[in-house]
């Protein structure tokens, strides 16, 4: 849980247009990944991996 949490904290801000008319809040998005079971945590890990990859590609 701690690893996932740290991973989530290190995520980058990749730019894609968001289509919300209300801001869901960064904290609430992270929490949705955490309570989303295996699938949610897998997405968090994927995002974390992308961050690392993009760091070394710079």
């Amino acid at each position, binding site marked *: 849980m701690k690893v996932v949490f740290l991973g989530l*904290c290190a*995520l*980058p*801000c*990749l*730019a*894609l*247009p*968001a289509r*919300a*008319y*209300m*801001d*869901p*809040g*960064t*904290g*609430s*998005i*992270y*929490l*949705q*990944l*955490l*309570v*989303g*079971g295996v*699938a*949610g945590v897998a*997405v968090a890990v*994927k*995002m974390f991996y*992308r961050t690392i990859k993009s760091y070394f590609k710079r």
Partner: protein
Amino acid sequence: MKKFDPASFKDPAGRVFSSRGRIFRELTPLGEKNWKEFRDSGLADELVQEGLLVKTWESSDPAHPAGVLIEHEPLPISYAYEWPPSMLRDAALLHLRLMERLLPRGFILKDASPYNVLFQGVRPRFIDVLSIERWEPGDIWAGYGSFCDAMLYPLMLHAYKGIPYHDWLRGSLNGIRPESFAKLFGWLDLLKPGVLAHVDLRARLHARFQRPGGALRSDVKMAALPASAILRNVSGLRAVIEGLPRRKGKPSDWCSYPANNSYDPAAREMKRAFVDRSLAQLKPRLLWDIGCNTGEMLRIAARHCELVIGLDSDADVVDALAEECRREGVNNVLPLVQDICNPSPGMGWACAERKSLFDRDKPDAVMALAVVHHLAVRGGVPLEEQLGLFAAAAPHALIEFVDRSDPMFVELRANMDAGQEAYGADEFKRCADAYFVTLDACAAGKTREVRLLRAKGR
């Protein structure tokens, strides 16, 4: 020019207006696209049939023949800060049920707000069809946060802390922020279902990440968050809400009032018969029962009305009435927590987004049985003000006067040295004659009188 409902300006997909008692929703191009996708999926009809969605159909507007206009079945206005706990719980579960029905078919609720729900009797109906839009892999549930703030947290406040949420929701229309709410919970509370994740951790994450969530949302989209992750959260929320215990502490004394009062059985029977007879004669479309308690007289009244709105300041008795209506399948009673000494005001933008109690559908009659002495003694409201308000609220009134010699009045006033000296049978007669014409009357025992009244000039 049509006047749009002041509560519908936020949605870029469309706006609501009413015309001659009918409710329409004018769609923008975005709203039209969303609605057509939803309609063509067949899901709209299914959800209406299942009683989850308000009855909705396409209509026409001579002023805009080309555009799509949708029409809804009109429902009485009520707000989350007026619902007893079981009704707020049902509104929250309705949101979760909709998410469970929508996501597998490629749709989602784009937000979550108790103001998107109205009640048909005690059955919740989702009214904002434009909140339903296409879901694409990676989209998160943007309404999760507001679901917690405005529905989950008030329910937890009631169930875990024994604190009524009505004043909190009335104070903040968007609900309770996690940063504030988490402060109410200690370490042991973290063991209670839902508190660790949805309250404590959410509050910590909000404190840590204070920037808006748009950019992160795009990241999640790129990582293709699957629907199963959202559904997992939804089922977790459902388990928390369904498992919430009943409020801490004993129910209010008013729940036992029907079995514990100063009526003798014959007087009570006379009162019941008079209420039955009077309302059979009036047949009001909409009746307000002010101080409805657990609804003994309200249920008699409901036989003769299209809709009865029961108002009482005690959330426990209103909840008991809602439970009974649900159990017995009564569909023309709407029980609301409402203190008539401090009724719901106009709130939100321009004080018009949420309507005051008196700016809604006007009742054809008000019923106030054995209430005037409470309003006088506890509320400090003189009879003159009370009867003036009842006469302004509706063309007819059914009012029970309780004399100062009645044991209930004596008990209420036992700890008071002064106040309401003018209260009495003569003052009641004077005020009733000033504002009303008495159509019929009945003595319910030696100290009580019920009058059927018609407001003067109406």
